């Protein structure tokens, strides 16, 4: 059994496969992320980047290797198996109870916001604190108000999601995710569903959070400027594998691989 220590990676993919039917989305993927690191995943659609976030949120399960003797195929978080759990000295696919404990560390912001339309803004941010973290109502509310202040929406706490713009909804969704005190925050194309004029509000909030906290972030985005400002590392994906990775300055100014060059040219031309 490994002991989690601060200098070990907070996320580690060990030869992870993911298939949807016959389609191989992740192919023996290896990578790790250090605590506090901000990693941006780029690549053409279908390259597997969103799947990585969904695996980390346990919205998907890893596909067991087809050869039963093959090792790996496990995701580790904070040094402990995450997609799997130890049972009788072996790693087996994690059950729901184990996942409930494990995913506590992870929060996610979705492309389509996915706020709960039947709850007002305040309840969207307090509900899970009360029901999952078992915080008291007062504590949850003061935490929620603090976070809503941070995302600039303290004057909207009584509104329902349907009464908010997309950008406002997404900022509430960010507050909702942060209210759970995640160690890892997953941002899945959080500005893709927004009207162009609303993108900067959301990105501004995320920049603030990146500057003022040490939360580990995995970011899937097409906003290359944002990626350059916020991330420590950019990983280029294609066909379920890492094509190339490096610090944003290097990746954006002198990409080595042809596929990265093509992709960046196409994205920046937009």
């Amino acid at each position, binding site marked *: 059994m490994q002991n989690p220590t601060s200098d070990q990676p907070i996320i580690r993919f060990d030869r992870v496969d993911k298939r949807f039917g016959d389609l191989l989305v992740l192919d023996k993927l290896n990578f790790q992320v250090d605590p506090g690191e901000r990693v941006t995943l780029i690549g053409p659609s279908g390259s597997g980047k969103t799947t990585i976030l969904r695996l980390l*949120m346990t919205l998907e399960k890893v596909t067991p290797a087809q050869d039963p003797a093959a090792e790996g195929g496990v995701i580790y978080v904070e040094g402990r198996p995450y997609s799997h759990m130890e049972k009788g000295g072996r790693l087996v696919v994690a059950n729901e109870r184990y996942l409930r404990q494990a*995913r506590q560390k992870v929060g996610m912001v979705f492309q389509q916001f*996915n706020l*709960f*339309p039947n709850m007002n803004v305040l309840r969207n941010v307090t509900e899970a604190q009360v*029901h999952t973290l078992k915080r008291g109502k007062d504590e949850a509310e003061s935490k929620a108000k603090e976070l809503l202040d941070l995302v600039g929406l303290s004057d909207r706490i009584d*509104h329902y999601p349907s009464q908010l713009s997309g950008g406002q909804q997404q900022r509430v969704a960010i507050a*909702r*995710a942060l209210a*759970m005190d995640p160690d890892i925050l997953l941002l899945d194309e959080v500005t893709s569903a927004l009207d162009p004029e609303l993108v900067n509000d959301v990105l501004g909030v995320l920049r603030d959070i990146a500057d003022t906290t040490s939360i580990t972030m995995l970011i899937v985005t097409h906003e290359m400027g944002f990626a350059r400002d916020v991330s420590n590392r950019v990983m280029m994906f294609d066909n379920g594998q890492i094509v190339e990775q490096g610090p944003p300055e290097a990746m954006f100014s002198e990409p080595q691989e042809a596929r990265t060059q093509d992709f960046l040219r196409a994205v920046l031309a937009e």
Partner: protein
Amino acid sequence: MDFQAVIDSLPRYAEPLLVTITVTVASAALALLVAFALGLMTSSKHLAVRTPARVFVEFIRGSSVVVQLFWFAFAMPVILGIQFDYLILAGIIALGLNYGAYSSEVVRGAIAAVPKGQLEASLAVNFTPFQRLRLVVLPQAWPEMIPSLSSFAIMLLKASALVSLIGVFDITGIARIIGGANGGANQLPHLALILVVYFVLAWLIWTGMRALERKAKRGVGINTRLPKTRAVAPPEEGANAAGGVL
């Protein structure tokens, strides 16, 4: 037609009216209970939960409510060796189960219509399956069910007249008794009277359900302007009936 006789007999309608309302309300309550139980069961991902509920729903929906009414009133007591002290109970059970089975498809359809993103967000904030159901799925599915459920409530009111056939004195039963006393001709004004009574009751249900719908939609922050008229979806349509608003 002797309208004076009808007016004179109005007091005799008081208790039967209460019977009609009781049958309708009690079987609607039972139907709602059955609808949610079966609707949740048929939405389950576990085959062992889904299958028996599915079979029960198809069994009830496949047969006739009139036959079921007679079966519950006169056949089931014999087969199970029990006795209904009040036949009204048989009526309530038959109507409640029948409309419950139909309405369960509305519940199932509305649950299935909750966007997948809502389930994913529920998981991302680590709700338990029960919390997800209670805090997210049902509050969102409920307003979608109301239009179809209100059509079923009106059908249930109409079906309540059938209990007169098994000997329960609702307004239909009493109209036939009073009217029949002096020969067939006297039945007509009485039947006309109760037709109007049923229409008024249906209107009350419809108005009440619309108010409920408006309230429920406000609860999820949805625009509360409702369409003025709506098509009634056929009861067989199942999941599609959840889209009762056209």
